[in-house]
């Protein structure tokens, strides 16, 4: 084990997989010479050369489409979109091509490709650079959607994504890049898709979260522990495939659940998760599932009011108390 940041864990995953498999290539805006806007691709150009680590024009739709074609041609491309916000320019290639090609061509091909996208709010980047679009991707069949919370998962999940034969949307939270954690050194350390992680055991309330929301949920759980409330925190890790079993088993055990999502509340993924829990645990639930979500507003810039739009540990604490004691 080594202590490293989420950023360095991702960087290490890329390096290990590129060393292991010459069919892995990576490209995107500023990934090579500039070493990535968030420096996730630091050192890659120096080690692997310009054949395998490539800068691209600012053409997001084509970045994804080139990865689709390259994957069809037998490579394992890892494309980077500078941020998830720019994925909106690539939605045609993501939704109409990357997600559908295997199915609409009758299973005659497959796309072993990854599109990495940093995202999330909280950095005062304004409405166009602060979005959480995970629901968009989760809604679309044919994609895998991964969103790690911790450095170890970042490494293990990215390595699994690169080895996976399905097209993977790999989300990275911009506010987690500097977070630190213990990461296994083993170059064969992989984290399987579709396995949620119970990151804290508890007995009173289940908190279901992903990515940065898991980190906030743990902070909330620690605070609630002081007040004698025992929370179990489930980190989904992958949104597709979705490990409903772990989430439901936990909700069954505690009888109460709070679902935390960073995306907009309306039609957000938390509504789907809450529904799954209600459907499976209706008889044993002691209270309706509570949702903590982003506000249904375009993100404001000012940090004083931006904070109101993103779930905070306090909002999770309040929601847990509500499912325990009512409003």
């Amino acid at each position, binding site marked *: 084990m080594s202590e490293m940041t989420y950023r360095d864990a991702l960087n290490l995953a890329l390096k290990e997989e590129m060393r292991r498999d010459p069919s892995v*290539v990576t490209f995107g805006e500023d990934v090579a010479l500039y070493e990535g806007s968030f420096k996730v691709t630091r050192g890659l150009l120096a080690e692997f050369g310009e*054949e395998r680590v*490539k800068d*691209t*024009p600012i*053409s997001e*739709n*084509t970045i*994804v*489409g*080139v*990865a*689709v*074609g*390259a*994957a*069809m*041609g*037998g*490579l394992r*491309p890892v494309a980077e979109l500078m941020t998830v916000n720019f994925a909106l320019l690539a939605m*045609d*290639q993501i939704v*109409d*091509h990357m997600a559908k*090609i*295997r*199915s*609409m*061509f*009758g*299973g*005659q*091909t*497959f796309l072993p490709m990854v599109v990495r996208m940093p995202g999330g709010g909280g950095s005062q980047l304004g409405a166009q650079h602060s979005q959480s679009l995970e629901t968009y991707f989760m809604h679309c*069949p*044919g994609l*895998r959607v991964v969103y790690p919370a911790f450095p170890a998962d970042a490494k293990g999940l990215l390595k699994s994504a690169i080895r*996976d*034969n*399905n097209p993977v949307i790999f989300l990275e939270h911009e506010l987690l890049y500097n977070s630190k954690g213990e990461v296994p050194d083993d170059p064969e350390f992989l984290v399987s898709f579709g396995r949620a992680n119970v990151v804290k055991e508890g007995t009173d309330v289940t908190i279901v979260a992903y990515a940065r929301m898991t980190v906030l949920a743990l902070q909330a759980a620690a605070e609630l522990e002081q007040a004698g409330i025992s929370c179990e925190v489930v980190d989904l890790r992958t949104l597709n495939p979705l490990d409903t079993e772990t989430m439901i088993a936990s909700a069954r055990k505690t009888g109460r659940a709070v679902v935390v999502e960073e995306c907009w509340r309306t039609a957000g993924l938390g509504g789907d998760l809450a529904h799954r829990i209600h459907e499976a645990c209706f008889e044993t639930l002691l209270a309706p599932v509570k949702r903590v979500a982003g506000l249904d507003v375009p993100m404001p810039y000012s940090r004083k009011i931006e904070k109101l739009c993103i779930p905070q540990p306090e909002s999770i604490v309040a929601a847990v108390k509500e499912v325990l004691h009512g409003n």
Partner: protein
Amino acid sequence: METRLRAVLPDQQLIRLYEQMVLSREFEESCAEQYTKGHITGFLHLYSGQEAVAVGATAGLHKDDYILSAYREHAQAIVRGADPKRVMAELFGKSTGICKGKGGSMHLFDPSLNFMGGYAIVGGQFPIACGLAFSAKYRGEDRLAACFFGDGAVNQGTFHEGLNWARLWELPVLFVCENNFYGIGTEVHRSSAIPDIHKRTCGYDIPSEKVDGMDVLAVYAAVKRAAEWVREQSRPYLIEAVTYRFRGHSMADPAKYRSAAEHEVWKARDPIPAFSKRLLEEGIVTQPQLDAILEKARAKVNEAVTFAEESPWPEDGAVWEDIYV
């Protein structure tokens, strides 16, 4: 003066081009009939009139070269070698279809023939062609990606992104525009600031040329020459093949935006009789041989229809298959 056919290709290959055009036409006209009978449903975009492009271009490519096309691609697939039976079954939505009935008319695909798909979002194939060309170059394979598209696609961002990218990364992509003058009902001069589509590559330093898309041999010669250049240089090239569709955009389109006079002018240039006339004039075939080719094509198409009719529907369980690996 027209080039003599025999100066370009041996007799057997010339006859093969003719057979392929006839088969394409017969297949498409049969599709129209099956559509009116309700056996083929959904969108159906027929290729009648444009045969010289698919047939000439495919003959000018290597078998290893990738081909990508849009949604008017039945002939592209069949000329590349796809079994008409399995293509027709696909259009019928049967499990024996080339994509198991999951794709339909607009999404034919056969990787064993390097036929890498029909794409139905206008311009969706440009980036994918670049990606396939990149993989070929990266792996040191001697193959290019031939990317077919219509005149309507040149106003999509992906066209410009793809041209820029292919030139920047020096990718072996042969762009082939089938300019049939209409994006559904909008004529080229009403959608493109420069109606001469081949001129639109000048901003990307990509050489291009215009070819008569009603002349199968002209298309063949242009594509063969361009493909050799693309392979040697590992750089993109664009061919604009000027052609005409004899039917509407799809079966749902009566094409009232085109004048009868215009239609007649182009019908008079039908690539199939135009080519048979030359074959006869040069003594490469006899009329009975031409008749036999037509009969053979009709029999093949009828066989395809019977196969499609008699094939089973997909099982209900197929709905969950082939989405993930």
